[in-house]
C-alpha cells in the first residue's frame, strides 16, 4: 500500500512531463504542413469516403446510414491501432533519454496512447460533419460517448504497456503485431454487419473481441438513439481494466531490465 502511494506521488510529480510529451507529439505531427490540424479532420473523412464508395458500389451491405456506421467503426479501430503501434516503440524510441536520466518509464507509453486520444478527439470533428450531413438525430445519450472512449483508452494503455515491454526484448513483435492487427481489423465488424457472419464466428467475436463491445456501444447511441446494453458496458470496462492490470504487472516486473536491452 505504501509502495502504491509512493508510485502515485511519483506519477503526480511527472505529470508535467506527460503533458509536455503529448504536446510535443501533437505539435510535431503537422509542423510544416500547409493545412496543419485540418488534416486530422480531413484525413478520416477522405478515407471514409473512399471506403463508402468501395463498399456501396462493390459489396453492398444492408445497413442504414452506412457512412455513419463506417466512420464509427473506423475511428474506434484507428484509435486502438495507432495508440498501440505508437506505444510499442515508446521505450525503445526513448532509449537515449532513459539511459541518461531517471524518469518513470511508463510515462512514455502513456504519453503515446494519450497523443492518439488527442488525435481521436480531432477525428470526432470529422465524425460530427458526417453526422450532420447524414441527418443523425442528436440525443442526450451522446454524452455517454466520452465514457466509451475512456474504456478504449484504458484498454489501449494496458495493451500498449504489454507491447512496449515486449518490444524491448524481442523486436520481432512489430511484425507479428502488424499481421495481428490486419486480422483484428477483419474480425471487427467495422465495415460489415456482424449478423452476416457464420454463427460460430459471430459468437467468438462477440465474446472475445473487445472492440466489438466498444463499437457497438457507440453505434447503439448514434444510430438507434438508445442507451447501450449494460452488459456490453460492464464487459467493456472489465476487459479494459484486465488489460491495464496485466499490462502494468508485466511492465513493472520487467522494467528494471530494460536498460540492459535498449
Amino acid at each position, binding site marked *: 500500500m505504501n509502495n502504491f502511494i509512493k508510485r502515485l506521488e511519483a506519477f503526480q510529480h511527472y505529470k*508535467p*512531463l506527460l503533458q*509536455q510529451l503529448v504536446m510535443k507529439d501533437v505539435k510535431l505531427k503537422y509542423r510544416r504542413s500547409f493545412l496543419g490540424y485540418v488534416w486530422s479532420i480531413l484525413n478520416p473523412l477522405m478515407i471514409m469516403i473512399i471506403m463508402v464508395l468501395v463498399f456501396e458500389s462493390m459489396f453492398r451491405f444492408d445497413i442504414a446510414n452506412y457512412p455513419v456506421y463506417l466512420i464509427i467503426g473506423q475511428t474506434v479501430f484507428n484509435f486502438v491501432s495507432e495508440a498501440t503501434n505508437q506505444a510499442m516503440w515508446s521505450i525503445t524510441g526513448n532509449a537515449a533519454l532513459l*539511459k*541518461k*536520466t531517471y524518469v518513470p518509464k511508463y510515462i512514455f507509453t502513456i504519453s503515446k496512447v494519450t497523443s492518439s486520444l488527442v488525435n481521436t478527439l480531432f477525428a470526432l470533428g470529422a465524425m460530427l460533419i458526417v453526422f450532420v450531413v447524414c441527418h443523425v438525430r442528436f440525443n442526450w445519450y451522446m454524452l455517454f460517448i466520452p465514457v466509451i472512449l475512456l474504456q478504449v483508452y484504458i484498454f489501449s494503455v494496458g495493451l500498449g504497456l504489454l507491447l512496449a515491454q515486449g518490444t524491448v526484448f*524481442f523486436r520481432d513483435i512489430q511484425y507479428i503485431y502488424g499481421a495481428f492487427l490486419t486480422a483484428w481489423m477483419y474480425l471487427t465488424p467495422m465495415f460489415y454487419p456482424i449478423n452476416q457472419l457464420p454463427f460460430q464466428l459471430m459468437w467468438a467475436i462477440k465474446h472475445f473481441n473487445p472492440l466489438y463491445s466498444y463499437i457497438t456501444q457507440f453505434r447503439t447511441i448514434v444510430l438507434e438513439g438508445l442507451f447501450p446494453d449494460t452488459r456490453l458496458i460492464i464487459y467493456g470496462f472489465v476487459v479494459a481494466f484486465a488489460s491495464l492490470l496485466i499490462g502494468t504487472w508485466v511492465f513493472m516486473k520487467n522494467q528494471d531490465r530494460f536498460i*540492459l536491452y535498449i
Partner: protein
Amino acid sequence: MKKKNDKNWNNNNEYAVIVDHATVRFNMASERIDNLKEYFIKLIKRELMFKEFLAVKDMSFKVRKGEAWGIIGTNGSGKSTLLKLICGILKPFEGQVTINGSIAPLIELGAGFDGDLTARENIFLNGAVLGYNKQFMQNHFEEIVEFAELQDFLDMPLKNYSSGMAARLGFAIATIVRPDILICDEVLAVGDYAFQLKCQKRMNEMRKHGTTLLFVSHSIDSVKEVCDYALWIEKGTAKMSGKVDEVCDAYMKYLQN
C-alpha cells in the same frame, strides 16, 4: 527525484550518498538475442546461457553532505555505471544505494532534447524530464536563456544548433535549482572556454551553499581543482579512496607504469 530513507535517517543524515556493497550485473549474451527465432533456437540447443559481466563489483563508499568527490579510472572501469547507479537509472543487482536529497544528473546534457522542437519548447520539455512543472519553468525561463546566452536563437529548431550550444542550454536547465547532489560526467568538455569558466563558477557557487558533488573526468587537473576527495575505480572495484591529491598521484603513477 527524491528518495527518503526513514529507517536509518538519524544515523545517516550526515551522508548524501551511501553505496553499500552494490553490484551491477549485465547479461552479456554471447551475441545479443533480440528476436524470437534466435531465442527459441538457443533455448532448444540449451545455449541460452548468459555471460555475466559485473560492471561494478561489491562497491561501498559514503559521501558526506557538502563534500566534492572526483571519480577517476581508465575507460570501461565502471565510472559511468556507478553514476547511473546513484542516479537511479540502473538498479543494483545486489546491495543498496541510499540517497538523501535531490539529484541533478548531468550525465549527458540535453538528453531529453528533441531536434524538431525549438529551443523555447525544448526548455519546457527538458524541465519536465527533470521533474519541474510548467509554472516553475516559466518563472525561470529568462534566467535559463540568459545563462545559456541564446536569446537570438530561441525559435530555431534545436537540430540546427551546434553541440556546444545545445550543451549550454542543457547545463542552464539542469542547474536552475540548487540540487542537494550534483552529478557531473564529463559534460563540461564540450563548451568553449568562456562557457566552461561560467559553468565552473556556477558549480562553485552551489558548492558554497552546501551541494554535494560527484565529478567524473579524465582530466586529473580539473579533478584536483574541483574536488576534495577522490575515488579510484579499476575494473568495477574501488581501488583506492581518500584525499584527492594522494589518490590522483597514485593513479598517475599507476598509469605511467
